[in-house]
């Protein structure tokens, strides 16, 4: 496992993100950003491999990276099979379990001290699993708008299915993210361009082909996630989560509704004193992009408190 810098990464976020780096995590070449010093924050974005309409990557955190890197070490990496990280080597690794393993192995590969892990949406689920399965790697947990961690009905398919635009286009990405956000103006050209560049890679297209055409999504990913979700929610109700936890939720999310936030708070808080819930008005699925100054203040204060 060796770290190197200067790999190809989209140009649009330069200035808000440092130069990208890569590190081998097992057999997976993993792209990441790393800046600042001190208590370490690791971000895990949402989504999963195999989407032809949109494609998140580590610069999703570009409004948080700079401000927080003044006080903390901040690390954002591309998940297994997403962004600029290699696809899974085996078909059976098109799974959330493999994504969680890769995330934990990445933290170990960078030899990070116990981290403040921050996960959004599907990434909130992955971050929670890292905190449950590898508590020695985690100092605190921040969960953002994670329908994956909610028993209430996820309305993604109701709100965002049948995108009217061609796959792998700027238009499809814009349609998806505008559907996620409270204010469509927060979906900037820069954001869309980063997503578009990810979707143009042959490797990314290959992942979509396997996920959709070879049906690894319906044959592997979703059934495994359903199993792991039941297990995870039971574990939360049983009190296995033993790190300070804050839940941050955009109130106007049409896909992961706020009812899930209250439910999650009650499940975790039943066992864990240091549990907080923050509901942010006029924010959809991406409070860290729609209200970055609020989000950064909450996260910075929470990390300081959990480090004390």
């Amino acid at each position: 496992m060796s770290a190197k810098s200067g790999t190809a990464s989209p140009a649009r976020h330069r200035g808000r993100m440092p130069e990208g780096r890569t590190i081998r995590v097992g057999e997976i070449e993993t792209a990441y950003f790393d800046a600042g010093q001190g208590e370490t924050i690791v971000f895990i974005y949402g989504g999963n491999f195999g989407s032809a309409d949109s494609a998140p990557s580590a610069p999703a955190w570009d409004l948080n990276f700079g401000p927080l890197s003044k006080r903390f070490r901040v690390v954002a990496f591309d998940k297994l099979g997403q962004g600029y990280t290699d696809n899974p080597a085996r078909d059976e690794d098109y799974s959330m379990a493999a994504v969680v393993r890769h995330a934990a192995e990445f933290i170990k590969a960078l030899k990070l001290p116990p981290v403040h892990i921050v996960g959004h949406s599907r990434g909130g689920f992955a971050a929670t699993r890292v905190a449950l399965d590898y508590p020695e790697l985690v100092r605190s947990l921040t969960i953002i708008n994670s329908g994956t961690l909610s028993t209430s009905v996820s309305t993604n398919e109701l709100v965002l299915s049948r995108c009217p635009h061609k796959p792998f286009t700027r238009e499809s990405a814009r349609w998806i993210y505008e559907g996620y956000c409270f204010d469509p103006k927060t979906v900037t050209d820069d954001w869309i361009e980063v997503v578009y560049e990810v979707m143009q890679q042959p490797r990314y297209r290959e992942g979509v082909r396997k996920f959709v055409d070879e049906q690894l999504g319906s044959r592997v990913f979703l059934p495994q996630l359903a199993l792991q979700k039941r297990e995870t929610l039971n574990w939360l109700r049983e009190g296995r989560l033993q790190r300070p936890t804050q839940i941050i939720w955009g109130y106007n999310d049409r896909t992961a509704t706020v009812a899930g936030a209250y439910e999650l708070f009650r499940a975790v808080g039943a066992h864990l004193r240091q549990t907080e819930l923050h509901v942010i008005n006029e924010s959809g699925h991406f409070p860290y992009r729609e209200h970055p100054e609020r989000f950064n203040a909450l996260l910075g204060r929470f990390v300081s408190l959990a480090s004390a």
Partner: protein
Amino acid sequence: MTTLKAETVQVQGLPTRVLRGGRRGAPATLFVHGATPGVTPYCGGAHLWGAVLDRFADERQIVVPDLPGSGATGLPAGAFAFDALVGHIDALIEALELRDVYFVGHDLGGLMGLILAMDKPERLASLSVVASAMSAPTGDSLDDLVFRSPPPPRWSRASQSWALERVSYSHLALDAALLDACAAAAEGPAHRAAVEAMAGDGYSRRLAPSMTRAKMRLWEKARADGLAVPVQLVWGSHDPTTSEERGAVLFATLAARQTATHYHLINRAGNLPFRDQPDAFHHVVAAFQDGVIEHRAAAA
């Protein structure tokens, strides 16, 4: 509270006890306590806040009054109505020449903050409404059992201890300094005057209707165009006086027309979340203020 000093400030002719301190020149944070004078079975005053003030004093200028009829601030003669309480705090802000106040109001103080935010938005930079049973809509609620049978004699140290324990997540959040201050407040002329004013139907005929009228105006404002001040609601997970659902209804009401509205739940906290979980309370309120401060700096 070593950094805070008690002063007496003349506010519209009423000598008003105020604790002040913290960082000079930093944003002014005004802490307005809860408890209805002469009614709530424990005595309100600046002493309710406790050691959480020290956490704020590191970064903020701190102003912590005793409301009229509470602590060491007397009760003016005449009808005692909610509007007079709001008018007093408004006049205090003017008397101290505070600009862009970060208002933190607990329970009754939270409702005062909402009314001030509605009527004089230019006074406030932000508003934190804390565990405010007084502010939340109640609908056709069940009769309130929380303070059903305070042990006599009322407002004795033991009786106030009972009342504070009823509304707290943990009795361990109540220290001797708090109970001593509550007992001392009960002996003071302010409390005795408030009890007299509220006796008989004083509360139900004067104070309660004035509060209801203020709330009706607030709902109308929230429906029509919202408040012009960023507002956060900070609720405890185990508050017997106002549930997280009631806080959520108040949040939804305010959030309908207002941009910067946040709702926070602090775990293992009752009606005095700043005592049950002072670290979390400080983190939640200070982070909200940080966001407002940064937003204002960017806008300026």
